[in-house]
Every structure is written in C-alpha cells, then in structure tokens.
C-alpha cells in the first residue's frame, strides 16, 4: 500500500522498540520479585514461629478469607478446620512448595503434613493450529504453573468420592463420584496443571491465592477476622449510612474509587 514515509518508518520502529521495553520490564519485575523473596525470608521464618503460638490461627485466617471458600466444597471446611499450619517455601521466584499440616479427627481423618511442590514454566500455547504459527510465536509463550501430585490420606467420610476407593471409574455414577472428589480440597493435592478439565478446577489460582495472598497477608486477615466479629456485635450504628454502598450495578461494584469517595 504505497511507500513507507520516513516518519511512518520511525513510528513503526518505535512500536517494535516499545515491545522490547515491555520484555525488559517483565524481566525487571521477576528480578524484583526474587529480591523481595530473599529479603522476606527471615521475617517469614520468624513469623511462622510466632503464628504457631496462637491457637487456631490458620483456622481463623482460612475461614475469614472470602475468596478461599470459592475454590473448595462447603463440606471441606470440616478439614480446613483441621489445618494447624500453612507454610510456603520458595526455592526461587518460579519454584516453591506449600506445606500444610493437618490435625486429625478421630475415626475419620488422620493427622498428617503434606508438601506440594510447584513450578512456573514457559509453555508454548498448543491450542493454536500449526498453520498460523508465524514469526510471532514468542508472543504465544505463556507462563504456566504446574505441580506434582502428592499423596494425602483422605477422610473416611469422603470414601465414596476418594479416587482410590471408587471401584468402577467408567460407570456414570463412578465418573460423577470421581469428579466430586477431584473438586474437593483433597483433589487439589493431585492437581498437576497438565490435564485441564479433569483435575481440581483452577488449581493454579488456588495455589497462587495461598502463595501470593493468604501466606504473605495472613496476619492482616487474622486481625480482620477479629475486627469483623466486633462489628457484628455492635449493632448500635444504624445501617443507614456508612457501611451501605449505593453502587448500582455489576460495573460499579468492582470499579475503583471514584469521585463519589
């Protein structure tokens, strides 16, 4: 379509160079994340020790967190309440393990500590068909979280949905039970990130929730859990004003603060 004019050429180059800049920015963000982890390591260790002295710390944090419950089955909370300790240990910014210590429930659930290992990996997006792969392939490299399945002893109450005890995994009923098990908290320990649709749903986001939010901000959530309880007891404030928000629809609900603040 006609010849390229000098300033169009310059602009065109500027865009390519900006794309390069984005790569540099990404690399810096990784570096910063690593720097942060190194710095935090000793504080996290100190904190892990302190948190252990507070009874039911993790039970309270996990019940408090609004998003946590979205990932698991309501019946899982019996076993969430058994969680005595949660720890995250980073080998580096892309490799880490989540260590969960469960107390037992007599005649139902065995006390145990389970360590699940995770890794972030570049994976070529294979949903794209071969023919449209062009020189831009590098853009389609996605970073993906993967993990290894790890053994955990399931509660007796879950026997009918525990994959080890389902006899006939081919029957419709068997399939259904199997899927229900995979959706439970225990199913998550088998999650690999490699068989989408057949595993614990959103196992990656669930891991990231623990690693990027629950573990780093556990003390904040613990404190909030106590503040909320006080609020509930304090009904003297009329609900008419402050706590009600007149946000009007889906759009505004999660819209950031605007002028009305």
């Amino acid at each position, binding site marked *: 379509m006609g010849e390229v004019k000098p300033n169009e050429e310059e602009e065109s180059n500027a865009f390519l160079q900006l*794309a390069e800049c984005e790569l540099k920015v990404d690399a810096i963000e990784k570096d910063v994340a690593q720097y942060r982890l190194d710095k935090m390591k000793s504080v996290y260790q100190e904190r892990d020790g302190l948190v252990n002295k507070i009874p039911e710390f993790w039970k309270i944090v996990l019940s408090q967190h609004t998003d946590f419950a979205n990932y698991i089955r309501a019946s899982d909370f019996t076993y969430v309440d058994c969680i005595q300790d949660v720890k995250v240990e980073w080998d580096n910014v892309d490799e880490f393990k989540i260590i969960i210590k469960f107390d037992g429930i007599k005649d139902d659930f065995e006390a145990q500590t389970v360590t699940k290992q995770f890794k972030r990996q570049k994976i070529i997006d294979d949903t794209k068909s071969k023919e449209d792969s062009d020189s831009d392939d590098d*853009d389609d490299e996605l970073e993906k979280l993967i993990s290894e399945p790890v053994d955990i002893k399931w509660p007796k109450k879950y026997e009918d949905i525990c994959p080890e005890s389902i006899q006939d995994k081919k029957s419709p009923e068997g399939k259904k039970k199997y899927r229900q098990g995979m959706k439970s908290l225990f199913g998550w320990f088998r999650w690999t990130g490699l068989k989408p649709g057949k595993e614990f749903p959103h196992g990656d986001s669930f891991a990231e929730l623990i690693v990027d939010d629950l573990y780093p901000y556990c003390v904040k959530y613990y404190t909030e859990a106590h503040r909320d309880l006080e609020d509930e007891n304090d009904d003297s404030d009329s609900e008419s004003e402050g706590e009600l928000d007149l946000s*009007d*629809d889906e759009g*505004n609900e999660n819209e950031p603060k605007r002028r*009305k603040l």
Partner: protein
Amino acid sequence: MGINSYLKDALPENENFELLHILSVPKETHPIVTQNISTRRDSKNVTIKTQHFFSLFYHSKVIFGLEVYVYITLYNSTIDSHPKLDAERLIFISKADTSGYSDIRVNVKDITNSILSYLLSIDPNFYLKNVKPIQRKRDIYTKQLILGSTSTRKGLKILSNRRRKGFRLDNEKINKNLFSHFTCNQNIITKITLFTRPSEQYLFSKSSESGNKHILAGSTLLKWWISLIDKNILHNFKQDTKAAMQIPGESSLEIKRYFKSLLYPNWQVGDIFGGTDTSLAVYKIPLFPDDPKSRFIRQLVEEGRILSVKLSTFWTELQERQEFRLSETVSVIGIEGYLSKLPIYIPGTDDIIISGSKNKFNRIKSYITGEEYDTEEGATESYYNVKTYLKERIGTNLILISGSKKNSLSTRTEQSKPKVTILQVRKKTK
C-alpha cells in the same frame, strides 16, 4: 414514535426539559433463569442483554434517573435456517430515583410510565441486529486484529506492521465473523418485572441528605409501583395478560388487599416465573444484575444448598435475609402478555445514544451516578459534565423535550418520589 412524543405528555406545558438516553452494546449472555442439566444440554436458546439508562434534566440540573435492562430470549435457535425465531422479551426495571432538586412539580409516576411505554414500543429486532457474542472466534484474520485478548506486546507488533504496510479494517468481514445477527417476530411475549425495596437513594448518592426528598416506606413504595404497572397493562397489554405480585413473608390474603384499588382485574398472588412451592428455586428464579433474589441464589450455591431449597423456603428465607433486616416490606412484581399494539419502532440517533463499549456507557452514566447529591451543586455538575462530554467527545447533545401536559391536569399534584427496586450491595471493607 420517538421518546419525545411519549415524554412530552407527562411533562408540564411550556417547560423545557432535557433527556439523556444511553444504550449499552447488546450482548449474548447466559439464560435469565438457570436451566437444569438436561435442558441445558439440549438448549440452543440465545439470550441477549442490553441496558438502557435515562436521566431527565430541568433548569440545568438532573432531576430523575431510570435504569432498565432488556433481555430478548430466542428459542431453539438454529439461527440460519429459521429467519423468524420465536422469542420473548423481558424488561427488568432496575432502579428509578429522583435527585430532589427539581424546581418544578413533575409527576414522576407518569414520567416513568411514559418511558416504559416507549420501551415497549421498540421493535425487539432493534436489539438483535449486531450482538456481541459470548466468545469471539480466533482465526487467521482475527489474529491480525487487536482485541481484548491481545497482549500488549502482540498489539505493539501489530501497530508497527500497520504503520509500515498500512491497514484497513474489513468491516464486512468483521461484521460477519465477529458479531451475531438475529431476527425474531415482532409479536412476542413481553414480560416486565421489578423488585421493590425502600431505600434512601438508588441512583443519586447522598441525595437523601439534602432534605428535599420524600422517602417512601416499603408498602407505599410497593403501591406506587403496582399502580404504575397496573396503568401500563391497561394502556399497552392485551386482556389475557398475567399480572402477579409476591411479598416475601406475607400471607396471600394480605397481598390481595393491595389489589383492591387496582384497575386491571386479573392481578394474582405469585410471580411470573412459574413453578410451585416444591419446585427447586434455582430453576425458577431469574438472575438479574444487582438483585436481591439473584444474590440469595448465589449465596445458596456457596452454601451448597442450591439443589435442596424449594421455592416456598426461598421466599421465606429471602425475607429474613440481612439485607432486609429493618423488616421493611419488599415485593416482586411481574407481568407477562402480548402487547395490544405491535412494537415496530426502531430508535434513531436523535432518540438514543448507543455507546460503542461498556466502558463508554459506564463513563457517561457515572457522570450522573458518581456525583454526590447532598448539595444542589451535585445536580448541576452532573448536568454540566454529561452535556460537555456528549458535545466534546461524542459530538451529540441531550434530547430537548418541551412539556405539553395542561396545567389543569397537573393540579392532581401527586408529587411522587419513587423509591425503587434494587437494593444496595454491602461492600466489604478491606
């Protein structure tokens, strides 16, 4: 007939008003009422959702606002082979509110009803011409486009290429591949539904603090709305229209007392979504934006009770929910029937601003709803901002409406301040 013809008869003679009317991009969405497994599997139904937002100005101040969703459901669409699909239209009245800064006495009920009649007159096909699909195809052509899913780096490379080689959007191809197009009969079932719940404000934040607004209690608010809908049936709907009201926690006898003063003879206790006391609520209760019923349904999913709660339990528990803890009267009103006059009107650019994106729609709307109305300045600022934005950024203007209602009529002086539907969302303080 344009909106002007409907509204002028509801506004006082010799007075000039201005109106904002924006429409969101029609887009495909999930069914209004959740389908059970087997229906879901076989269903080829398509649901299209669009949002209207109106606000009325007088003396350079906003005085009234109305938010309405229109859903068109196309049944068993095998799209290409059936040029005329059987369909249904549902109008969900989400919110109506007054700012409290009107320098003139206006009849808000008439205004609301006129806008409702206008909406009913719109040809359902208007919403079906260019519909944003739930998911857009990715193919070789769309890979050259910058879409929501395009990464920044990929986007920059595309822009670089375009500067070098030039590029023109193939509108025909885009239209064909990236939008859905449907048609349906004009003569289809039409439903109107709303949830009435008293509140100090619905659209105009802090407007109750000015002291200019008259806040209606639950049962007064309910009467205000049901009489409005009652009038609307007589005016727009055929004789066999179903009209129903449900008041959670109230006996049938009590509910029926509200029907005595109404003109349409066939009002009944219940709702228009069908089912009996023992039906599962999840498959009967519609899901609307920012609606207490829908919120309760979603909560039941979280609680793991969704497949056990029956309709009767649903209504009882709904009333006990914390959002209604002042034990105010709330109600669900619904009608369902055919219109007495075929809806054939296609709104033009002088009648409506079709915002190209949801972001733009929200931008314009937030000039109204993002303002604070504890003082009159809020009402002036929102007017000024909307008017300027339309002129400078969209190249259009507010619709001018000259009232034509004779003074003698307006001495019926019912200065109604509607306190409408939808309830507030409790925000979590983080």
